[in-house]
């Protein structure tokens, strides 16, 4: 396995790391950068739990070789908001008790962000489609849909 220099930006911060050719973006985020918010659910790209935003687009980080993230901007859940400065999406998820076991929540929040950043007026159908690649086993999705609607309204109001 060969080694490569990976230069990329994660949550606004520039990084330069030496990575192995087969290393996945998921492994680099969790193990090399200590960003544990991105989860591993299935390792085969079927559950969406590992999703992050790469140049603003939702991707499954277990399906991306780390080296393919070169020169890109990655956003993980840690970059969405902080306790002192929650993103409206995070606030909305809390308001609706949309997080149960919490394991799908980082991916759901990032999927919501991809949606709302490009479509501030999503229909119910848009919301379902935007979250269709992420499995949630606890909530039945309903409160997640409500949270996204609320977040959309709040984000529009503050514009």
């Amino acid at each position: 396995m060969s080694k490569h220099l990976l230069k990329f930006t994660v949550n606004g911060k520039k990084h330069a790391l030496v990575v192995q050719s087969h290393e996945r973006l998921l492994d680099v985020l969790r193990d090399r950068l200590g960003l544990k918010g991105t989860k591993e659910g299935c390792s085969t790209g079927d559950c969406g739990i590992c999703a992050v935003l790469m140049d603003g687009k939702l991707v499954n980080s277990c399906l991306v070789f780390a080296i393919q993230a070169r020169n890109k901007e990655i956003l993980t859940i840690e970059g969405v908001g902080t306790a002192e400065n929650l993103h409206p999406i995070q606030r909305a998820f809390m308001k609706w008790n949309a997080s149960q076991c919490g394991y799908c929540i980082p991916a759901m929040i990032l999927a919501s962000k991809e949606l709302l950043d490009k479509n501030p007026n999503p229909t119910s159908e848009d919301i379902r489609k935007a979250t269709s690649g992420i499995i949630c086993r606890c909530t039945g999705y309903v409160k997640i849909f409500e949270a996204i609607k609320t977040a959309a309204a709040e984000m529009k109001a503050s514009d």
Partner: protein
Amino acid sequence: MFVPQNMGDLLQFLDTHQSGVHLIANGTDLINRIQRKQVDPKVLVDLTGLQELKYVKKQESLIKIGALTTISELIASPLIDARYDVMREVAMKFGGPSIINMATVGGNICSASSSEDLLPVLLVLTADVQVRSIHGERIVSIEDFVTGKRKTGLRSNEILVETRFPELDADSACSFEKVGMRNSLIIAFVNCAVYLKTDKSGQVIGDVRIAFNRVSGKIPQRSRDIENKLKDKKMSEQTLADATTALRDELKLTSDFRVSGEYRTEVACAIFKRTLRRCVEKLSGERALV
């Protein structure tokens, strides 16, 4: 992993390393198979830096799509307008945003896996692929290019750079349908793509092309016998019924661990009718079958 700086780099590398090389566009299929230990590649070649292979353009009455265009980039292109909604029909059932943001047109063609959705559509659009090596280029019809499950005519020193198909004119339409276990993230039980060209009146079938996935050899194939039965016929429920009966006899879809071949064949016939009808609707904006 080899990360080529440019096309020349890549072609040179491919020419000198003939075996054990796996090209990855966005790796979705391959990384999966590495995880499941189905493959252990010696060398990976990352193509994602070749931005010049991301495009959708119209040239010489052909729609040309660069191999590294992702499915979501494809459906966002202004050239893929309502006439080409078939691409959206494919994308919708493909998977969620994170899948279509990564899956590339070229990657899909080359992985030629039996769950392929794009291939039946490209087959009925009589698409060609353009492959390139350090020695030059060649154009191959997609039908000749995909030879078996995970087998294409791509030589070890070549990469696929583009797929292209003739523009749809005012009298032609294309549609796609897929049936699986749930509404998203599905491997199809069966999918169907239909291309229809009528005469100016819309009453007579001029040309029709039909393809289903996982036919024989586990790859998508055209159903030419049925196409010939429909060609030049008047558009009517009877014509459709006769074609469906013939289809049921011709299509001997295989079983898998999930569902029987009989079921797949039955459903294939049902969605063939629907897909053909949708083409008619697209052409006329209303139901035209008598």
